[in-house]
């Protein structure tokens, strides 16, 4: 009797969020995959029947440069973000609680400030009439006609800028739990600060590194707003193509085929990580 009440209580408080996510998250995601196999109609909608045409167009070699660019920009963003975030997380975990709260606030505020505003800030900084160009030119570090905007470098810089907090926050969470006595022990045993950091701290926060890598890489893969505003015509990523298929070409099935491919690209690393973590836990228990 009590057990039955327990069960119905569980369903009662689980159902609202479960149903909401089922209807507005799972079904839409499945719908994208299904729509990828549907023909388009002329009014921007989805026609009846089935087709493999959308999927086949993905095999066009013209996609390769875009795919490659999406991958390398995401990978480079991830590497730089994690490399910068590691010492920051290390430092944040070592200072006193008040300063730590303050540092955390400093990291969170740019992260919570409007995404477009952050892009806009960089767009005006990198503008030919902007501060950064003027400073670099006056220091003779750049030629008079330097163009800092509308190139892959600008896209990478702004991607690093917007993704950095996504790397700092999980790494800080891991560093907070790290036992810093291990570091002192390594130093006592003769390791230099750099060696102790690399051989003791970095392996100690590897789970944090893993979540930072997944967060940054996955979010970067779907990026399209940054290339749109600070990139040139040749810096488009997969996301730009999805957005153009939806809004410029009004071809939802084509966009869905691309989105489904992106979804697979996102889910794959996560499944690998999940499997690796499960395997790792078993290994640790043994």
């Amino acid at each position, binding site marked *: 009797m009590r057990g039955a009440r327990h069960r119905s209580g*569980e*369903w009662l*408080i689980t159902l*609202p*969020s*479960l149903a*909401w*996510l*089922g209807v*507005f*998250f*799972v079904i*839409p*995601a499945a*719908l*994208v995959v299904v729509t990828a196999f549907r023909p388009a109609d002329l009014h*921007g*909608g*989805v026609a009846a029947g089935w087709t493999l045409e959308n999927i086949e167009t993905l095999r066009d070699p013209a996609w390769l440069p875009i795919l490659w660019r999406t991958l390398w920009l995401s990978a480079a963003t991830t590497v730089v973000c994690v490399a910068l975030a590691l010492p*920051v997380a*290390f*430092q944040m975990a*070592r200072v006193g609680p008040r300063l730590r*709260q303050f*540092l*955390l606030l*400093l*990291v969170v*505020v*740019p992260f*919570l*400030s*409007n*995404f*477009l*505003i952050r892009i*806009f*800030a*960089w767009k*005006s*900084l990198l503008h030919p*009439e*902007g*501060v950064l*160009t003027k400073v670099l030119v006056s220091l003779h570090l750049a030629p008079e006609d330097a163009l800092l905007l509308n190139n892959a470098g600008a896209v990478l810089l702004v991607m690093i*800028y917007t993704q*950095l*907090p996504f790397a700092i926050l999980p790494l800080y969470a891991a560093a907070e739990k790290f036992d810093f006595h291990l570091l*002192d022990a390594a130093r006592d045993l003769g390791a230099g*600060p750099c060696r102790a950091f690399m051989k003791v701290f970095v392996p100690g926060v590897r789970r944090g590194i893993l979540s930072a890598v997944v*967060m940054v890489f996955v*979010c970067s*893969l*779907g990026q399209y*707003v940054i290339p749109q505003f600070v990139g040139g015509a040749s810096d488009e990523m997969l996301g730009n193509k*999805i957005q153009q298929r*939806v809004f410029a070409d009004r071809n939802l099935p084509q966009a*869905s085929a691309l*989105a489904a491919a*992106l979804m697979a690209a996102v889910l794959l690393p996560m499944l690998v990580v999940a499997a690796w973590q499960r395997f790792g836990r078993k290994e640790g228990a043994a």
Partner: protein
Amino acid sequence: MKRSRVPALLTLGVIAFLFAPLVVLVVNSFNASRFGGEWDGFTWGWYEKLWEADEVWESLGVTLKIALSASLASMLLGTLAACALHGFRSWLQGVHSMLVTLPLVMPDILMGMSLLALFVVTGVETGLATIWIAHVTFCLSFVTMVVLGRLQDFDFTLLDAARDLGATRAQAVRKILLPLLLPGVLAGGLLAFTLSVDDYVITFFVSGPGTTTLPLRVASMMRTSRSLPVINALSTLLIAGTFLIAALSFRLQRRA
């Protein structure tokens, strides 16, 4: 043993990197120069222009309406979800937990695209309601995580104590659990609010012709160079607002 100064210096550098563009933005909102490359004197002019830009205030109204209602709904759904995830261990919660975590790592463009597909296939007109649905969906997971963190610190023997002293189950929940959980729920709500105000990508996909939220307005202003310095002024106000909300949320989460 002497600690290395390198991590501290790098941290300072990273924080400077994070703030430099925002500082330049704020300074330039008072700069008479159009492109902000040099200082042409102090002015309130851009703020006056912003004050007269009716379409900006109109979209602020739309944004606030959506953000308030979406954060309330996600607070309710997220708190229930967190209670379920914390209180039970079963296959159902396994599925539930996966469903709650996945939206956190789903790129925005996929979420926007898939919700658009849902609305197109079911023939729902995009507009205020569809934006609200999308915002509740992505805020839900964040609220759940914040409340769940709070629940993990909660001492459940307090509930047993209340029951022992004669409180009914409902009374114990209302008088003990809810007041102690409230700061966490509010912090989650504040996070949901800021995320909703901030969102551009998902909103772009599910908005209709008549509904322009503030980020959508900023994006269209960014495309016309005429209104660029006005965006500086608007951004300064928004950054100040974000700072206040973040500080408030920190306070709520710290008070144990």
